[in-house]
């Protein structure tokens, strides 16, 4: 397994707040749309198909 599942996000509470703040005033529909865009942006950052496949498996 090459996917990093150890804590890696710097300042987890800040990140979590960024994420929830960004969607605080959104309808579920708009928030879901944003999440889909976010998945794609982050997937591009990861790049490796193996890593993405692992991530998808874990998320299922």
């Amino acid at each position, binding site marked *: 397994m090459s996917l990093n599942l150890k804590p890696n996000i710097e300042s987890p509470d800040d990140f979590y707040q960024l994420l929830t703040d960004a969607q605080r005033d959104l309808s579920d529909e708009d928030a879901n749309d944003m999440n*889909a865009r976010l998945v*794609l942006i982050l997937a*591009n950052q990861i790049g490796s198909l193996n890593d993405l496949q692992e991530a998808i498996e874990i998320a299922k």
Partner: protein
Amino acid sequence: MLNTYDFPEFPYVQSEDQISGQTVRHPVVIVGGGPVGLTAALDLAAQGIKVVVLDDNNTVSVGSRAVCYAKRPLEIWDRLGVGERMIEKGVDWKLGRVFLRDKEVYTFDLLPEDGHKIPAFINLQQYYLEEYMVEACDRNPLIDIRWKHKVLSLRQYDNYAEIAVETPDGIFTLEAGWLLACDGANSDTRRMVGAEFAGQFFQDRFLIADIVMKADFPAERWFWFDPDFHRGQSALLHKQSDDVWRLDFQLGWDADPEVEKRPENIIPRVRAMIGEDVEFELEWASVYQFACRRVDQFRHGRVLFAGDAAHQVSPFGARGANTGVQDIDNLSWKLAAVLRGEAPIALLDTYHAERAYAADDNLLNSTRSTDFITPKNGASKRFRKAVLDLANKTEFARPLVNSGRLSTPTPYLDSALNTADGGAWKGRMTPGTCASDAPIVVGGKDGWLLDQFTGGFVLLALGVEAEPVDAGAFTPKVVTLGSSFDDPKGLVSERYDAEEGALYLIRPDQHISARWRRFDADAVKSAISKATAGAI
């Protein structure tokens, strides 16, 4: 409708076979006179094989149907002497634009590599293509096309197939040493043989409308997701010959094909797309749905399947006729060698191995395009929306937009006919790959490399001394850089990684079979043996 084209009516002639009442066995009978069957007739005849073509109709394809023809099939038709006319009549294009609503999301350029005789793509109505091939068949004494001949039943024996054929003069029996089923997606032959044809059906319907208009839209492929003029669906606009334009509207599964086909319902859709003030005439329309599936085995005894009869894909990506023609490219030299008794029947099983592999590659691409164009649930729809939104703003999302991945040849990388490389090579000319073209000079005149690869196996010697190799019927023609041709632009050397010297064994279908850095007659012989399923 169909004002720009006069349909030829080919004469029905009662055959000698039927008049005499004697059952005749023909070495090859081709069922279906469409692009694939006609290509098969021309390719087999080019190798000296007599063929009979049976077609249940007596004209060419009604409606433009297949539209986009890719480089590789055009190269095959060029080899068969009909490509030039198609390219001349067709519309050359290389730009595609993708829109979301009324905004352009991105543009793709096929960016064809320079230095090839044949363009990346042309658009041409299928009836022109068939007409040109029928004319070429009629000029060839080895080809006997029989119009209004419908195959009613088929029975297989050890070394032939027996078929009952219906003509306006009644029913008669005919035998085929080999029967090529080129009778399309709804192949009767496939049903008669009992072959399985499994895959995925898509619950969606599309309207194709061909219109004649004199408008200044460019010769580009325009694809809309969720356009303002056709909300919630997709649409396509593409230019063909004679000011005919192909329009394609996704309709959804609930649409009624009979209602949608009526001109009074089509015209408002067209108006909405092209504008109120553009004059046009409706030429032809059809409502279709599709499946992605393939036959279990390309060879069932003496019956060989090719084209849509062997595999059906969605239209996105122009993978139907283009793939079918490449089936024939692969099959015809093998069948000709088997018919002449030069190669074992096992060579024909490699037809299945190589072309089923290519079909699966096409099916995969086609299914993926279809899943993007017609998302199956809310989540897929959401991801597609995300891709299209992002593609507009950021470069990274653009390769995810899938409005059809255009047909390119599938290399037979794992084929048992290949000889594995002994060392390291650069570039694309890996064994199993279709040989690349390049501009050359032959006898002081400009020419093309692919035009040298005709008449069987070829040994291409680039900076390597190659001697003739005796391989019986498969003795390769030696084509040598410096004596057979010159490479002033250096593109042959570059594309074939020949700086340190290179020797290529090229199959009759212009695919790379093996390559070496130096000449060794035994190595060449054993590569030919491998490429012919042990014929030598």
